[in-house]
C-alpha cells in the first residue's frame, strides 16, 4: 500500500497518479497512443529510488545500448544493420527486447551476456496500457495447395482485462557517447516464452513481454535478487485468461484511437484450447 495526499491507495493507483503528475507537467509520453520502438519517442519507466523505499517514473530511450558501443554512429549501425568489410549485410539489432533466458548468458555465444550487469543491478519496469503484436497467417496457393512463403500479417492490440496500466519487466543501461559526451538512459523489455494466447497472436516468435503482478513488479525493482530469482521472475508468463487480444486496423498507427477493434473477414479466430 502507498499513500497519496494522505489517502491510502493501492500501488497501482499510486503509479497512475505519479504518471499523471508527469503528464500534467507537460511530459509528452504518457498520453501517447502508441510508442514504437522504431521511433525516438521515450518510454515511461519505473525505477526504485535510492534505498529501495519508493519509486519514481522517468523517461528512457527504448533500445538497450551496451557500453562497448562508443558513438551514436556505432549505435545506429547496430540498430539498423550494416555491410561488413566483406560486403556481407549484417542485419540490425535494435535491442528493444532482452530474452529472459539471455539475461546472464548469451544465447548466441554461450558467454556472459551484454545484459548481465543490468539484469543484476538495473532492473526497472516499463509502464504500459497495452501493446501491439502481429499474427502471421499463411495462405495456400490455390493451384498447388502449398503454403505461400510470405504471410499475411494482422495486428492485435493486447491488454489486461482488469488493469488500465500494467508493468513489464525491463532492464536499463546508462550509456555515454564517448565522442560527444551525450548521455542516455536506455531500456530493453524482458520477454518470456509466450502463453497460450500470445503463442497464437505472436505466432512468428512465440514470445511475450514479461508482465508482472504488483508484488512481482515491486520485487523486480527493489529487492536484491539472486540470479536464479531474476531468471524465475523474468520468465513469468502472465495468465492468458486475464489478457485480451483484439485485432486492429492495419493502419492503426495513424488512427485517432489505434486500439479501436477492427474485424478481418477471412481471419480465423484464435482458439484457446489448452
Amino acid at each position: 500500500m502507498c499513500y497519496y495526499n494522505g489517502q491510502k491507495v493501492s500501488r497501482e493507483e499510486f503509479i497512475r497518479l505519479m504518471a499523471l503528475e508527469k503528464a500534467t507537467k507537460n511530459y509528452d509520453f504518457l498520453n501517447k497512443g502508441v510508442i514504437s520502438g522504431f521511433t525516438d519517442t521515450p518510454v515511461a519507466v519505473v525505477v526504485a529510488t535510492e534505498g529501495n523505499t519508493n519509486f519514481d517514473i522517468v523517461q528512457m530511450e527504448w533500445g538497450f545500448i551496451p557500453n562497448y558501443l562508443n558513438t551514436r554512429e556505432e549505435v545506429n549501425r547496430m540498430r539498423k544493420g550494416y555491410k561488413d568489410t566483406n560486403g556481407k549485410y549484417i542485419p540490425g539489432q535494435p535491442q528493444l527486447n532482452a530474452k529472459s533466458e539471455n539475461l546472464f548468458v548469451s544465447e548466441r555465444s554461450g558467454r556472459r551476456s551484454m545484459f548481465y550487469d543490468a539484469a543484476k543491478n538495473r532492473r526497472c519496469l516499463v509502464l504500459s496500457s497495452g501493446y501491439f503484436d502481429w499474427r502471421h497467417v499463411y495462405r495456400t496457393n490455390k493451384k498447388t495447395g502449398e503454403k505461400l512463403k510470405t504471410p499475411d500479417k494482422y495486428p492485435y492490440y493486447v491488454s489486461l482485462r482488469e488493469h488500465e496500466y500494467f508493468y513489464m519487466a525491463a532492464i536499463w543501461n546508462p550509456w555515454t557517447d564517448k565522442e560527444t559526451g551525450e548521455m542516455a538512459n536506455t531500456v530493453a523489455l524482458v520477454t518470456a516464452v509466450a502463453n497460450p494466447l500470445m503463442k497464437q497472436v505472436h505466432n512468428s516468435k512465440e514470445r511475450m513481454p514479461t508482465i508482472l503482478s504488483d508484488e512481482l513488479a515491486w520485487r523486480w525493482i527493489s529487492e536484491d535478487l539472486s540470479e536464479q530469482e531474476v531468471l524465475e521472475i523474468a520468465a513469468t508468463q502472465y495468465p492468458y485468461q486475464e489478457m485480451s487480444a483484439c485485432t486492429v486496423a492495419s493502419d492503426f498507427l495513424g488512427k485517432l484511437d489505434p486500439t479501436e477493434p477492427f474485424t478481418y473477414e477471412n481471419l480465423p479466430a484464435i482458439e484457446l484450447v489448452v
Partner: protein
Amino acid sequence: MSQETIDWQANYRGHPIKIGKRQIGKTEVYYVSSSPEKKPLVLTRALKSGGKEFWTSIPQGMQKEAEEIGAIIDKLEK
C-alpha cells in the same frame, strides 16, 4: 489559466475561480485557476484502497483544497 478553455466559473472561499476539464489518457483532470499570475491547481478523482473515490491534487500537497473544490465540481457536473 495555462490550459485555455474554461468550462465553469465558480466561487471558492469568496473568490472567483475558473475551472477547465481535460482528458489525459483515460483520466479526467481539472485545472482550477484563481488568478492569471498563479499556476492552476490540478485536480483529479482517484480511488482509495477499498474502492472509494476521492478528490486529490496533482501533485500532492493541496488535499483540503482538492476536496473542497472537488465537491464544487461534483455539483457543477450533476
